[in-house]
């Protein structure tokens, strides 16, 4: 069955004409110098690498001799039937110790009461004597494990809540303890026990209820609580800053003392007066060439500059006063808001010119720094500086022109 037959059967198209000859594999020629065996190991013919995998584990090295183990019978003294069981134990000369799980057979310390003590201390409206005895029985049997007790508890067809049971038992134990060992004679251990027996039923019920609710939260609620918690943390972190900011804002707000009563504006004459004043300030503002844009505060102040009249009708607008000078007060059209040192606001000179300017100042006998930088002296000083700069400019031009002029002269003379 050749491929040609198969193709015929399936009526597939023929492949190209002649079936291929078996390809002859031409390997390397063995050079003359080396033996056949050696050549078969080199170059193209090298033997395949063998990776050694140790599929078996090493035998573990043990330096000791094997120990002896003995099938040992033992009894558990916690049991009361004397059952004998066996277990493997290492052979040793020492006699066997007690079974090591015996000590776990503990029982809870449960104080019981006599009739007299019951009558005196433990009477309760909700719990009859029989029920109380039944409870004590259960506690003894189930080792004061409340979950089991509460589950198995049934007295006269009535079941009780775990919290009620625990509450009753704690009350009993506590009352007995304090009766037998009055508070001031208690040892440290006893008073610790006394304190640990203080059981708050309502709080416990509430706590368990809360835990239940916590468990029953939907994922959305959980996510919401998480977000709120993060928010709280963030608020706490920035709390101090917020308090300060709030104080600042409150202070700023409280600064605005009412300069006048609004009463006067409620009358018709007052209103018309106000309208006139506002119209006047509008006109005044429009007339000013450059409205003050030096600071946002200026916008406010120009709006508020409508003359405010107090109860007496005298204008409270701040303006020049005769004694301004002794307080250093002066009035100017355009001011840039803020506080500064006068000598620090003197205009500076270009770096290239400073040296020469100072030189000229020195020649004129003026110190680089004013002794008393007042408004007058600063203005004059600035003027002087500007003049010196102008002078230097001029000098430069004159020198340049002068030099060129001289060169021209020399050329003319030279030519003549």
């Amino acid at each position: 069955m050749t491929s040609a037959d198969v193709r015929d059967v399936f009526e597939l198209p023929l492949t190209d004409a002649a079936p291929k000859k078996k390809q002859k594999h031409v390997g390397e020629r063995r050079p003359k110098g080396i033996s056949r065996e050696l050549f078969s190991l080199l170059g193209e013919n090298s033997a395949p690498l063998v990776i050694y995998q140790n599929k078996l584990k090493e035998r573990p090295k043990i330096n000791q001799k094997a120990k002896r183990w003995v099938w040992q019978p033992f009894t558990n003294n916690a049991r009361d039937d004397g059952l004998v069981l066996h277990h493997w134990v290492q052979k040793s000369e020492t006699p066997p110790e007690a079974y090591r799980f015996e000590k776990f057979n503990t029982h809870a310390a449960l104080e019981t009461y006599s009739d007299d003590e019951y009558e005196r201390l433990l009477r309760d409206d909700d719990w009859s004597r029989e029920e109380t005895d039944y409870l004590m029985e259960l506690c003894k049997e189930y080792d004061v494990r409340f979950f089991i007790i509460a589950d198995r508890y049934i007295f006269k067809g009535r079941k009780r809540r775990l919290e009620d049971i625990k509450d009753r038992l704690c009350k009993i134990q506590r009352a007995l303890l304090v009766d037998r060992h009055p508070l001031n004679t208690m040892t440290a251990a006893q008073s610790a026990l006394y304190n640990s027996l203080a059981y708050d039923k309502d709080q416990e019920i509430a706590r368990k209820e809360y835990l239940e609710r916590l468990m029953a939260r939907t994922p959305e609620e959980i996510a919401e609580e998480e977000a709120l918690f993060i928010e709280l943390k963030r608020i706490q972190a920035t709390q101090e800053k917020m308090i300060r900011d709030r104080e600042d804002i409150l202070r700023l707000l409280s600064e605005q003392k009412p300069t006048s009563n609004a009463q006067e504006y409620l009358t018709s004459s007052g209103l018309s007066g106000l309208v006139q004043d506002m119209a006047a300030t509008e006109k005044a503002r429009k007339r000013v060439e450059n409205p003050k844009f030096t600071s946002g505060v200026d916008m406010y102040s120009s709006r508020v500059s409508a003359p405010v009249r107090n109860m007496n009708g005298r204008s409270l607008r701040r303006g020049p006063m005769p004694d301004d000078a002794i307080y250093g007060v002066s009035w100017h059209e355009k001011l840039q808001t803020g506080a500064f040192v006068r000598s620090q606001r003197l205009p500076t000179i270009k770096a290239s010119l400073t040296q020469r300017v100072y030189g000229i100042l020195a020649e004129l006998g003026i110190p680089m720094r004013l002794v008393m930088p007042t408004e007058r002296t600063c203005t004059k000083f600035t003027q002087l500086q500007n003049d010196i700069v102008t002078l230097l400019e001029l000098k430069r031009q004159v020198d340049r022109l002068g030099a060129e002029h001289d060169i021209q002269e020399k050329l003319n003379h030279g030519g003549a």
Partner: protein
Amino acid sequence: MGIHRISKCQISRPIIVGNDAKPLTEEEKQNAPKDHTHHWRIFVEGVDGEDISPWIRKVVFKLHDTYHNSTRIIEEPPFEVNETGWGEFDIMIRVFFPPEAHEKPITFFHRLKLHAYLTTGDTVTPLNEYVKSEQYEEVVFNEPTEIMYNILTQHAIGDGHGLAVEPEPGHEFSLQREQDEVDKLDIAVGKVNEMIQSYRKRLQELGGTPEQGTPVAQ
């Protein structure tokens, strides 16, 4: 925000920033740290004994790092720091205004001066005496807040009547002194203007106009 500023109003107050220094006596040197040679005081004060605390809340003096607690904050007058030392260094002084002023603090630098010298010709001899290095400065409030305006107009400059007219020993800053300086400056301006005139004339002679930068070809 509601801060009312007095528009067009400018209040300028003089203060004195400086230091004085006195060499320590032998006895004082015993009690002072090793190598200290002088007792010095850096201060910011008003002129003519003016109490500047109504309008200055605190002054912070930043001393050289080698001083313990080199940042000294003085919140009550007198705004000064008394210390002992041996070296002259720059002290940065920051003056803070009351919060109602809503102003940023202003800064001065003062080179502490301890040593006095007598320079005669080429020789310089050290003197062992009290020195004082102070500078008159003016703090200018442009458009002060209403509260600041009230504070400043309730406390006059100097001794209550503005800057002193004539200088007194210990208080050399007065209107007289200012006038002297103004006069000197006026003279200087005059001289410079004379020179400017002469240069302008020369420039015209040479054929260039003062405004032109390029020369005119002859």
